[in-house]
């Protein structure tokens, strides 16, 4: 297995170790996963699937918890919605 995977966060390439979750890729790039109801930037809190603060769009599927999904080559991740 290759050591690293490259994914795209809002079209910018980010390289992470194989096995890293999408949350890690987001924290390494924009640092923000979603915008809250009142407009605040939000990022992972629990990293175990409970809080839903880390949700992003992955390959055009919205509302996925980035802490629960492993990065795959060429994944397209959209954040900040």
């Amino acid at each position, binding site marked *: 297995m290759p050591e690293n995977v490259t994914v795209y966060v809002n079209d910018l390439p980010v390289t992470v170790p194989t096995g890293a979750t999408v949350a890690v890729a987001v924290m390494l790039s924009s*640092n923000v996963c979603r915008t809250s109801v009142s407009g605040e930037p939000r990022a992972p809190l629990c*990293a175990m699937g409970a809080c839903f603060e880390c*949700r992003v769009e992955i390959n055009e599927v919205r509302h996925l918890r980035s802490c629960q999904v492993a990065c795959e080559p060429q994944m397209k991740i959209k954040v900040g919605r």
Partner: protein
Amino acid sequence: MQQTFEIVVIGGGPAGIAAAVAASQSSKRVAVLDDNPRVGGQIWRGGPGLAQPKAAARWFYQLETANVRVFNGARVIHADASARTLQAETTREIFPIGYQNLILATGARELFLPFPGWTLPNVMGAGGFQALVKSGLPIAGKRVVVAGTGPLLLAVAAYLCDHGANVARICEQASSSSLAAFALRMLAFPGKLREALSLRYKSRFAKYATQSWPVSAHGKISLESITISESGRLREIPCDYLACAFHLIPNTELPRMLGCHLNQEAFVETDELQQTLHQGIYCAGEPTGIGGVELSTIEGRIAGHAAANDKRAAAKLFPARARYRKLAAAMKQAFRLRPELATLAKPDTFLCRCEDVTLHQVRQHNSWKSAKLHTRCGMGPCQGRICGAAANFLFGWNIESARPPVFPARCESLAAISSLTSSLTTETEPPQFHGGFQ
């Protein structure tokens, strides 16, 4: 077609693994369902692939060689005690599983306390932050403050130091006198004491402060610094991450859905064989009381043997369980959360992060139900997992019983559940997962 097992274990953490291994020593058909890509639970997260402690490696080996069917990435979203069936969801499908005996080993999650700035990116749960680092987040040279209470603080701080982080402070909310009293009681557990000392040695360059807790977090887009209270004085510390560990709370949604009885402290009540008040439904590990990995595995083994009807093997483990329950009780006493922590949030601090509901708005109500109805607090995708637990700590509110599904599930899963259960039609309130998401 529905698969049926004589014994089904929900949760593949230490308790669930031990339960499955013990149960498989009979000739019964045993299955484990866990929602992570690999078994291991919170403490052995990542499973056999990662470098793990010796005890973990032993358990993984036993599970692999036992006659146990393991379903990874399968989240149980519904359980029906009268039909003895579960509904599990993976990213690809929803499938029913039948059981004769059920062992609930659903573990615990972290309690998060609201304080000004707790919604800033990079303010995280300590266990969660550690999980991100394990999964590849580089932290070499990053300034981290670890704050909260109990042994998890040291475990996380040591792990972060090992990975090159600059741990600026370890803030323990307990007083030095309760720590001293706890250390005395630890003398009866030399192994645990040695473990604690070795963790402190690994994190020796980080200042360890007692009577210390975060008061507010600051930053424009993400965390830049935090203000802590340390022995009565306020102090600002610049940092990149704040990792908070204010105790664990049990995952009791499934036990509650199955009608298991909770005791006054909201833990699942069991008899000496770990059986709940429901015949054939057992519970082991953190949902019966927060006790750490050793107690979880012992309870798991007892439940596994008991579910396989080997009461003698189960009874042999009672003394070990009693010993570790004593340690758990000492821990609970030493690291009890101080009342000041319930006063950190200001009127404009968000209590509910999903719907951005402030403390002031929630405080207008006198029950969780009323607050939910009028403010949408707890109505977002986390279904009150974060704010409900916080409201329970802040106001002592009782958080109502679980309705299916246990987690926001996909449309297909909901359809499958409602076609399988008639009782749901009147009771189910659809989860807010379509339009409800922001």
